[in-house]
């Protein structure tokens, strides 16, 4: 029976957050994702910053969702158990002439309802962050800002939604959406489904889906951002997230610890044409590295462990496009969600789910489970707890990833949960196997074996992410 109340297209952070908040209601929910896992598009490569909310223009959806989302993420970290740290952010001013801009952002923050902000002088700033450039003369301190693991957040929403009844289908690409009486026919590469409501959470593709059902056209320009990630050994160079003053293309190149304790530098901002172009370039990486040095002069780039690029869904009108277009009832956009999209995710999810529930008078479930248990992180347990757990389940005593200290048991958890990992990247995003300094050099063969065993597929079918990314190339499997 392929009839749903709500079909959410896209299992990024917005789609999964919406699924999670919708799953509070008595509705039949399906999330469709063209990739093999959640968090595989726009959501996977970003700064992981929970912005305080002083950037967006007052009155915009961006401003509202950002400030609300920032508070929600802090609370959700306790119930959905994803990696989050409330480290605060500092926006640096390097020039007396630019002080009015700093003040303007402060004022904007006040108008947006950002609490506890403060403008620091050079001395206060230096005391707080000794590694910051001597050229910084003042900074906007926003203590409510934080850092979150984008995968952890998305997986937490997805698992909690699934536990509350939402279904997920992966490797299922939506090809056509047709308005019909009482809803929509959604045609995918795996067949046609019917639904009363559609949520468009398709990241850089959200203009295409919107324009397919609405004459009020929107347009997205993919804006690529490149990042460099450094070893956890140097993750404490700064404590807060360090921003320069924003420019025309965005918030500028930041320097920040990540929720897992690495050091992150990026992004630049390049408008491009290709919505699949997440390629890093030498010029781009050189550019972000030199720009970051202006804020923090002694970044140890020789501790780099990886680099990556992501795309922001930059909409031409500058704000998030949320809710129904005038001319297509029942179709709910979460379109043009660029920064601060990650921060805004829970607020957007709640907002859209409440709109949809109100539209169909959906009742709240009595048995909604608001809490989701995080992954067991064996290396963080005390010796006694760890031994007790290993006695119960010996696979927690087999260390597979030596850099991040990840056991076979944690990898098995990543695969067996719902929705579970189906690829090496899926495991890495959930439990950090291969995320460390050797970048899976040692643990790849073992992780492949575990994945093959758990999924009951041959080693030759193991992929890094989507089909086509098979790790091995052999005709008869063995050498």
């Amino acid at each position, binding site marked *: 029976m392929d009839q749903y109340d709500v079909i959410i297209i896209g299992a990024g952070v917005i789609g999964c957050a919406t699924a999670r908040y919708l799953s509070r209601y008595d509705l039949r929910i399906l999330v469709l994702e063209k990739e093999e896992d959640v968090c595989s598009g726009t959501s996977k490569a970003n700064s992981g910053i929970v912005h305080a909310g002083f950037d967006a223009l007052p009155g915009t959806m961006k401003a509202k969702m950002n400030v609300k989302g920032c508070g929600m993420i802090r609370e959700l970290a306790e119930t959905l158990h994803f990696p989050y740290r409330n480290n605060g952010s500092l926006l640096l001013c390097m020039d007396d002439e630019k002080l009015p801009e700093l003040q303007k952002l402060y004022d904007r923050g006040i108008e947006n309802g950002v609490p506890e902000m403060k403008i620091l002088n050079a001395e206060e700033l230096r005391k707080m962050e000794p590694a910051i450039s001597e050229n910084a003369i003042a900074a906007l301190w926003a203590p409510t800002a934080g850092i979150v693991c984008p995968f952890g957040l998305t997986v937490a929403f997805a698992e909690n939604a699934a536990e509350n009844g939402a279904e997920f289908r992966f490797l299922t690409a939506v090809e056509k959406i047709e308005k019909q009486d009482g809803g929509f026919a959604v045609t995918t590469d795996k067949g046609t489904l019917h639904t009363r409501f559609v949520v468009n959470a398709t990241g850089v593709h959200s203009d295409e889906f919107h324009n397919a059902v609405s004459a009020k056209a929107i347009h997205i320009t993919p804006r690529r951002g490149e990042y*460099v*990630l450094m070893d956890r050994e140097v993750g404490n160079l700064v404590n807060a997230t360090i921003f320069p003053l924003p420019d025309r293309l965005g918030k500028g190149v930041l320097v920040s610890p990540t929720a897992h304790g690495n050091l992150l530098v990026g992004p630049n901002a390049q408008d491009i044409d290709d919505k*699949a172009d*997440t*390629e*890093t*370039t*030498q010029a*781009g*990486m050189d550019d972000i590295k030199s720009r970051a040095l202006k804020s923090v002069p002694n970044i140890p780039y020789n501790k*780099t*462990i*990886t*680099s*990556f690029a992501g795309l922001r869904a930059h909409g031409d009108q500058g704000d998030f496009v949320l809710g129904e277009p005038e001319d297509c009832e029942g179709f709910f956009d979460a379109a043009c969600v660029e920064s601060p999209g990650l921060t805004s995710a829970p607020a957007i999810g709640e907002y859209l789910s409440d709109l949809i529930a109100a539209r169909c008078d959906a009742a709240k479930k009595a048995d909604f489970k608001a809490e989701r248990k995080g992954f067991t992180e064996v*290396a963080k347990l005390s*010796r006694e707890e*760890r*031994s*007790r*757990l*290993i*006695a119960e389940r*010996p*696979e*927690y*005593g*087999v*260390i597979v990833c*030596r*850099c991040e*200290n990840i*056991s076979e048991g944690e990898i098995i958890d990543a695969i067996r949960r719902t929705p579970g990992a189906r690829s090496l990247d899926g495991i890495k995003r959930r439990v950090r196997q291969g995320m460390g*300094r*050797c*970048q*899976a*050099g*040692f643990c*790849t*063969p073992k992780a492949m*074996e575990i994945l093959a065993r758990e999924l009951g597929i041959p*080693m*030759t079918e193991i*992929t*890094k*992410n*989507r*089909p*086509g*990314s*098979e*790790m*091995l*190339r*052999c005709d008869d*499997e*063995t*050498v």
Partner: protein
Amino acid sequence: MKQYNIVIIGGGPAGLAAALSAKEHGIDDILILERDERLGGILNQCIHNGFGLHTFKEELTGPEYAERYIDKVLAAGIPYKLNATVADISPDKEVLYVTAEEGAVTVKADAVILAMGCRERPRGALGLPGFRQAGVYTAGTAQRLMNIEGYMVGKEAVILGSGDIGLIMARRMTLAGATVKAVAELMPYSGGLKRNIVQCLDDFGIPLLLSHTVTRIHGKERVTGVTLSQVGADRKPIPGTEEFYPCDTLLLSCGLLPENELSKTAGVKLDPVTGGAEVTDTLETSVPGIFSCGNVLHVHDLVDNVSKEAALAGQKAAEYVQNGCKAAEGAGIRLRGESGVRYTVPQSIVLAQADEKIVVRMRVGDVFRDKALVVYADGKELKRQKKRIMAPGEMEEVTLLRESLAPDTKEIVLRVEG
């Protein structure tokens, strides 16, 4: 808490040789902790021959070389644990390891020998631009998949870096039916042993492109090709020299890094050049009673040297235990390299405890022909060793005689001179 005289971290060639030597020097109470499911370490995946020419005067494969040591360890009844990953070493030599059978266990050691080996420099650390697709492997990972697990990683490969594992894998993949299009090397000389270039590339007609690097990796899901560019004297790509090589696999053999994360938990001081511990002539680190040897100390090119060095560490750890765990007394003579000598191991000599002959190992920073390695003690020439050729890929050694060193020597400097 269980107590041992010597705990050895790692059951590869260094750990095995250290264990045997400690036993030969009178210590029975030894524990080897090995994280893999068998002893022998990385030698198990090195199924090519050429090991042991110096030690055994015959050409063995990696597993055969390992087997000789494993057999002796078994015959000597030295205790070892497999699938045992060490999670922490404290400065007072408490070692926390994890196994499926025992859980998380802390043991106390009088002496610890660090023998964890090294890891390969991954793609991310090289900053290679492009998509993050499948098909980019470090050479050692591909070697493990092929030689231990029995799977072919690709059919058409380009190899970046001419380190020994990359050269060996060029031949290995060719023998298994793959086509290796080229080996590209950033430097104007190879980082590998001469004999490997001849036997693994020349004999199979695989081109070695010196002063070349990868400037783009093509393919979104899986590698579809790489662009190679020439680099200038500044090692930066020269625009206009780009050439596309279709392939499904890129192997990286761009350097090995001693894996000293555990050493750091113990507070061991590291040498920024080697990436390994700073040691005295007894291979003792800055933490009394913690010794280091093999590739975790500095990256070797011949396993024979690993075994020799580890045997010294085993002996000295045994003596440390037998002497009541007392730290060496007396100030050390600092050793350093300059003018072409990148580093020395050891980094200091404590004359009061030194053996009659002190082996100093080092690497040079460039290719030198018809030059000499010269040793100066406080500015006075102590020794001059003529060399027909020296290259970064081949470790050099000089033996110093204790009696030739004045007791008040402050510093020994090693230089390449014309």
